[in-house]
């Protein structure tokens, strides 16, 4: 029987061979050899179940700091972790940059933008969105862990609202808010500040606004169709949240990338995959920005202070005149993830040209640069005619422009606080602030197609990007001389 067994094995092998031969032959004919792509779902973190804190935090809490103290009893490291983050410091670490001698540290705490220009002297209003309690002036104690506001990210957003200097508003029931913690950090937590950057819904970013609380799948495929949360991409460990805004990026690093979850060459078509070396995913997959709620594209401070009819979208006496746009076509630049330059208080400007506050770094010869879509906020902001530097007005509080409408006074006070000279002569200069567009990704069907960029009516200015002409005809940057 042993020999029979051998024969049986042989027979089975022969049978298998007889079956597998045609299967392989037809399989080859079929040629279905598509390489496996990365499965995005494998990279989405699992939601942790909610821990009910109601019985853990019986309260009552008098001051918000009491809540923090209670939190720290069980989470002793939490405040220290938070205090390392830019969410707390509003200031990045100093970095050696090519355009100046001493290292540069940027951050909301010290830098400017071209919306409300700067927080120094204007703290209580601006620090409403700070995750701490009581940042009223330059003397705020960044080292006190009890000032950390746990509730703004962890309490039920319906039960907790922050006011001036980041303090909870009058009617907040701290006990109820504290007892509501334990659930996931939702879009509402992030959105309260980030969707309202610049002082209102959608003002600043173009790709972040309140329409993302409940987005349709056409608006944002990730959050609308697949119900992702901010923290699913901005993965968080020890309160360090992944992601880094361009306006603060002096170095590349810590960026959230599409390729964190998606394959680097995700398309079926080789020609599309050929694009990814030179074109950011966002360039095609964010075909338009501010698709639902409008965003501010222009702000003229020089017209502020006039008594004319006011309207949130066109003119406010305290701020001047604006232009909002919806469904805005982005502008396209090479970008390698850092800024080429970042304006810091005291830097000289050339008033004959627009001041580029944070131009993206990179060009066609930079192998790390890709073509990115940007929203640019253009604003006329005050500058010192004599010293040729930008100026920061004091806006809120005593002597502030929003109270007295006196530019000279506001700028003088502001310059004092910031520590820059002021000659008494001011004018307004156009400035540009760049925002790379990366959120609000619509379903792939709405991505740009060939003729949106290529051909006689394409949206890209090839010459400005450094190409000799349309790469369809002239070849991509890899064919150019090094």
């Amino acid at each position: 029987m042993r020999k029979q067994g051998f024969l049986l094995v042989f027979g089975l092998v022969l049978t298998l061979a007889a079956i597998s031969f045609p299967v392989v032959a037809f399989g080859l004919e079929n040629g279905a050899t598509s390489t496996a792509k990365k499965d995005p779902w494998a990279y989405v973190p699992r939601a942790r179940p909610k821990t009910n804190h109601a019985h853990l935090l019986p309260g009552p809490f008098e001051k918000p700091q009491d809540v923090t103290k209670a939190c720290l009893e069980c989470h002793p490291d939490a405040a220290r972790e938070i205090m390392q983050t830019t969410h707390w410091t509003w200031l990045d670490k100093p970095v050696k940059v090519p355009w100046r001698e001493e290292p540069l540290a940027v951050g909301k705490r010290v830098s400017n933008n071209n919306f409300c220009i700067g927080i120094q002297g204007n703290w209580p209003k601006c620090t409403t969105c700070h995750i701490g309690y009581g940042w009223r002036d330059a003397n705020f104690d960044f080292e006190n862990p009890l000032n950390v506001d746990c509730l703004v990210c962890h309490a039920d957003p319906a039960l907790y609202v922050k006011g001036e200097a980041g303090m909870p508003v009058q009617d907040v029931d701290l006990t109820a808010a504290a007892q509501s913690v334990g659930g996931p950090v939702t879009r509402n937590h992030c959105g309260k500040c980030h969707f309202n950057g610049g002082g209102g819904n959608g003002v600043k970013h173009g790709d972040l606004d309140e329409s993302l609380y409940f987005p349709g799948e056409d608006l944002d495929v990730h959050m609308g169709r697949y119900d992702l949360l901010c923290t699913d991409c901005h993965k968080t460990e020890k309160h360090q949240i992944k992601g880094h805004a361009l306006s603060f990026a002096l170095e590349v690093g810590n960026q959230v990338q599409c390729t964190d979850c998606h394959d680097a060459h995700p398309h079926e078509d080789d020609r599309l995959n050929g694009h990814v070396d030179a074109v950011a995913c966002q360039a095609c997959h964010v075909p338009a920005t501010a698709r639902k709620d409008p965003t501010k594209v222009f702000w003229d401070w020089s017209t502020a202070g006039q008594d004319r009819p006011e309207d949130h979208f066109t003119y406010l006496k305290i701020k001047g005149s604006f232009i909002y746009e919806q469904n805005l076509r982005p502008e396209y630049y090479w970008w390698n993830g850092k800024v080429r330059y970042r304006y810091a208080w005291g830097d000289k400007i050339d008033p004959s040209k627009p001041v580029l506050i944070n131009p993206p770094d990179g060009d066609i010869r930079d192998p790390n640069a890709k073509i990115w879509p940007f929203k640019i906020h253009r604003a006329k902001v005050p500058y010192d005619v004599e010293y040729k530097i930008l100026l920061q007005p004091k806006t809120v509080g005593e002597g502030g422009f929003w109270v007295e409408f006196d530019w000279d006074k506001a700028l003088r006070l502001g310059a004092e606080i910031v520590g820059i000279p002021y000659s008494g002569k001011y004018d307004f200069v156009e400035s540009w602030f760049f925002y790379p567009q990366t959120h609000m990704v619509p379903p792939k069907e709405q991505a740009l197609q060939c003729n949106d960029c290529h051909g006689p009516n394409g949206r890209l200015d090839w010459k400005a990007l450094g190409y000799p002409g349309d790469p369809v005809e002239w070849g991509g940057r890899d064919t150019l001389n090094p």
Partner: protein
Amino acid sequence: MRRVYLYTRYERFWHWAQALILIGLGLTGAEIHGVYRWLGFEEAYELHTYFGWALVVLVAFTIFWHFTTGQWKQYIPTLDRVDAMIRFYTVGMFRGEPHPYKKTELSKLNPLQRLTYLGFKIIIVPVLGTTGLLMIYYNRLPEWGIHVSLGTLAAIHTAAAFLLLAFFIVHVYMTTTGHTVFSNIKAMITGYEEIPEESPAAGD
């Protein structure tokens, strides 16, 4: 004497077909190797390739035949009485001693044959076949991820061919060691062999 039907029709066909093919391979191979000049290199090369393919087909069918009919069991190696066999071929046969092994339908091969033929079948022919096929497809080897020089392949192929030649010579000579000088060859032609009916000298 007893007439025993030793070799089935297919076995005989296989044997002689293989013999012809191997002779053809040997002759053309020698010409490719540069031993003599008759057909010309190109012609010899073409013929050698055809013979090679013919052998592949024949061997494939024969393997199948061996397993389906159970004839593979003839090659199960054994060391039983090998010493006697060696003694017979070196000493006994000159003294006219009887063959120490009796052929039957169930067991046609003596232990020494079993070992030799098995070696022939699982070493020499596979080595020749593999190297031969690799040389036929030499131009496409890199795209299959095989990197080996033609020289190495040819050297192995030639070495195995010389082994085969040695086997061939011994094999032909051994056919004459039967009951009569031609009885073995006749058996491979007719299928029947005349076997002495006396009881074997040893082992029983």
